[in-house]
């Protein structure tokens, strides 16, 4: 089954590899945004089935973007998966406390990223 995914990440290499992975391996539709602010606007118009959200971004970071997504009734229902290179348990606890649907870690395997997402989202 095809799904629509929005990737929000300021790093263009990560954004492109993740998009390639989800499109090629899973056949999902992918939209991208390179900042939190751009991601909020894109989420409203694109209405993705899930959002893959980077944590560390200049300006509006991932946690702030997540809170804004949840505040807006138009985007509040969209599952959000945080994507982070932070592996320390204190960071993980902080991210989990936000209430995101899952935390995925960089580096990810392009071969299995879509499977990881599908698993945690129950697809």
């Amino acid at each position, binding site marked *: 089954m095809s799904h629509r995914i929005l990737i929000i990440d300021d790093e263009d290499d990560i954004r*492109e590899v993740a998009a*390639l992975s989800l499109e090629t391996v899973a056949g999902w539709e992918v939209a991208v945004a390179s900042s939190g602010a751009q991601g909020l606007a894109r989420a409203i118009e694109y209405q993705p089935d899930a959002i893959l959200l980077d944590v560390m971004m200049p300006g509006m970071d991932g946690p702030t973007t997540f809170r804004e997504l949840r505040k807006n009734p138009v985007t509040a229902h969209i599952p959000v998966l945080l994507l982070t290179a932070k592996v320390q348990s204190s960071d993980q606890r902080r991210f989990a406390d936000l209430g995101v649907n*899952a935390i995925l870690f*960089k*580096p990810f*395997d392009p*071969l299995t990223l879509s499977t990881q997402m599908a698993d*945690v*989202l129950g697809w």
Partner: protein
Amino acid sequence: MDPAPQSAPKQPNSGPPDLTAALHRLWLQFLPQIEDRAAVLESAAAALAHNKLSAEQRQAAHAAAHKLAGTLGTFGLAEGTSLAREAELLYAAESELTQTAATRLAEVAHQLRIMLESRK
């Protein structure tokens, strides 16, 4: 739904030909950017060796190491991620960097450079 941490890849990617070829094209496309980040680590390590590492340079090295840690393993360089993560943690420490740390950071920067050269 509870957050579900996922593990990082441990083996180089070896997927379908289309994906493998496309990943290689992206690797070549982003290699200059990746090398720039490695150069930031080399510069910081050199400055540290001469006791001239500024706060800004240390912050830049920390950011570069963080980005490399997130990127290299995605392109199949799991060892590169381990090295970059080690540098990230050392640069993130609140204390002054010791001589031992300086030596290790220089080694890490050098090993990352060798790894990148071998993947060209």
